[in-house]
């Protein structure tokens, strides 16, 4: 009996798979109910007259698990941009359909997520969110010549393939820019570093920082590490850093750990200048975190949610309205990603009836000439490697808010 049951089950699986593959209507239908209320007006249009051409843009990132914060931010950020684009009449006159997939911050699942979006009919991908999945997906997507613009995949190899571009800085660029900033502004000569040696992002920035520090006359007096498995107690590392006589502590990791580091440093009476990178953005929203501890914290970030230019204010208000949160940098990157795609598609004069391959080829050419002003930087341009060129803003936290450090 067990045998029969397993055969029946296997059969059912195969059947449902086949139907999933051929029609692709099922995910779209469920998405229309939940996710893709994005194209309010557009969904109705597209739904009623299914013959109408639409752009199909996918986004992916971890929506479950430890890195879910980032994936959710990316997907929400892009959704706001796509809603706005649809309200304003779409891209080149065609509305945009938007679909998302969960990659669980795992390379294998990321390929699955990408394939499921492909089955849906995706033409352009915003994502993946995190570095390791981006590398895996980019090398898979290059076979389809699918254009992908990752908002936040920062490892160098993320854009190794011709079809991959990114909105954020690459890790080395961040590290080098941080060292340059510290050197040029003479913030300190004795620097201690604490980084997450099990994290790609953190160790990538660390290496670039050390390489550039030598050119800037910065002396690295102490280097401490932690790993993903031991990121709650930093007292040993902080004590060593304190003993080393560092004037500045460089913290290239995410804000969740940084909040703990700052709290523990405070109880120890360790008070150097703390200097972070874009992952530090969001620290003011950590629950139960005493904001006064972040006083004087400097960070290099392309995006500050408290900036008062019109575009940022518009984005932040809309994001708060829709999701009840202050957007972090990932959301802003994704928001820009959607608009960058719009700009590139319009410049290349593409229509949705083109194949994925044609769109990919055209966009890869176009990206090299496109220049874009967004909320994560103005005058963004891209080089051959798919890396963005933009200026980071250094901000310092004063009275619980970001203030430009210039």
């Amino acid at each position: 009996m067990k045998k029969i049951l397993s055969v029946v089950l296997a059969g059912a699986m195969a059947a449902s798979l086949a139907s999933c593959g051929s029609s692709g209507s099922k995910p779209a239908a469920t998405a229309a109910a939940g996710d893709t209320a994005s194209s309010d007006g557009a969904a109705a249009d597209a739904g009623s007259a299914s013959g109408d051409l639409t752009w199909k843009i996918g986004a992916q990132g971890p929506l479950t698990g430890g890195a879910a914060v980032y994936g959710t931010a990316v997907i929400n950020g892009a959704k706001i941009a796509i809603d706005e684009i649809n309200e304003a009449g779409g891209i080149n006159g065609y509305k945009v359909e938007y679909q998302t997939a969960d990659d669980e911050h795992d390379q294998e699942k990321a390929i699955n997520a990408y394939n499921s979006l492909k089955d849906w009919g995706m033409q352009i991908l915003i994502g993946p969110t995190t570095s390791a999945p981006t590398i895996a997906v980019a090398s898979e997507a290059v076979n389809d010549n699918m254009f992908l613009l990752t908002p936040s995949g920062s490892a160098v190899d993320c854009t190794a393939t011709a079809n991959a571009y990114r909105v954020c800085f690459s890790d080395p660029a961040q590290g080098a820019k941080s060292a340059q900033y510290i050197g040029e502004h003479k913030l300190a000569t004795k620097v201690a570093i604490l980084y997450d040696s099990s994290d790609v992002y953190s160790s990538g920035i660390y290496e670039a920082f050390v390489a550039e520090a030598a050119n800037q006359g910065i002396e690295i007096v102490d280097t401490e590490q932690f790993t993903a498995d031991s990121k709650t107690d930093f007292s040993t590392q902080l004590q060593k850093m304190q003993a080393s006589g560092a004037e500045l502590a460089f913290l290239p990791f995410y804000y969740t750990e940084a909040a703990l580091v700052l709290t523990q440093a405070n109880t120890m009476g360790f008070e150097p200048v703390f200097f972070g990178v874009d992952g530090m953005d969001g620290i003011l929203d950590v629950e139960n975190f005493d904001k006064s501890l972040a006083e004087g914290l400097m960070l290099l970030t392309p995006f500050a949610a408290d900036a008062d230019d019109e575009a940022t204010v518009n984005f932040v208000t809309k994001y708060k309205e829709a999701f009840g949160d202050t957007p972090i940098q990932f959301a802003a990157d994704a928001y820009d990603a959607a608009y960058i795609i719009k700009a590139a598609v319009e410049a290349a004069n593409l229509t949705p009836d083109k194949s994925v391959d044609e769109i990919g080829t055209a966009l890869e050419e176009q990206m090299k000439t496109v220049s874009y002003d967004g909320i994560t930087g103005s005058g963004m341009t891209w080089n051959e490697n798919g890396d963005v060129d933009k200026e980071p803003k250094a901000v310092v936290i004063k009275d619980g808010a970001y203030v430009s450090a210039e």
Partner: protein
Amino acid sequence: MMDRVKAEKQKIFRSNMITFGIVIIAYIVVELMMQTGNISSLFKGLLVPLCTYSILAVSLNLVVGISGELSLGHAGFMCIGAFSSATWSMLMKSSGMPEGMRFFIAIVIGAVTAAFFGFLIGIPVLRLKGDYLAIVTLAFGEIIKNLVNALYFGVDANGPHFSLEDSMHLNMDGGTIIIKGAQGITGTPKNSNFTIGIILLLIVLFVVLNLINSRTGRAVMAIRDNRIAAESVGLNATKFKLLAFTISAAIAGIGGALYAHNLSSLQALPKNFGYNQSIMILVFVVMGGIGNIRGSVIAAVVLTLLPELLRGLSDYRMLIYAVVLIFMMLCTSAPSWIQYRDRIMMSFKLKSTDGKENK
């Protein structure tokens, strides 16, 4: 007496043939679907992972089901297989060696390295009675993951360089860095495909099923069932357990090699080589039936497919996945459920015999 032995042998042979048959039929069906283009990209992308996890499930079943020890670190052996084979492939990438040859050697290297570590761990632990293997392998899996995350390895004209600090400490003179700590290995050639996966699965099944039905396999099972009795007839318990464990580690290494050559970036994340992965493999084994090789392959396939098939449900899919998992576990293991199931089966059988009698 001879007849009974013969009948028993035939039964085993038939059962083994069914297992191979299922795998081969599945392969043919999928190949036909691929040829006719009736297959979604999602499913196509899942084919190699399905083979990988089936191999891992078979591997762990050898330890848990046949040898009766609990291993909670199989993801660690998979990790070793993945990284050692990928390192080889990266080293040989530009050497002009034919791809098939290179991948074959990569798989062998993955298997041998994992087997070596399995052997090393087995020597002290398998001498002990009790749950020590579970404890040691649990630690081993985590150690390997963290070690790989801290390991830097590069090759230049002066030979190989190792460091556990960072890439600056490699003191490289040009050359290439192959393992970059937490960033892992990027650019591994994608040599894995469905056909190779199925061939490996068949080989693994062949080895394991034959082992179980051999003199050695019977010895291993005798030790599992009653160690004292087995030792009293002169079986060397440690030797046989060590043999089974080393073979299992080697198979896990093969799974790792297949995994590594299916993705272009290889990193030891908690998700793929951590504790959760070890437990996931154990779930395949428990779900498919401890000691039931065919069952563990089916369970691995079903449980790998399930979360992907539920993608349409977006946020609820992990919830539903968990509920299905609990439900399946109850269905196959809880005594009261089994009783209930049997009663339903019984009533069906009775009805059908009633029907026959009425006619």
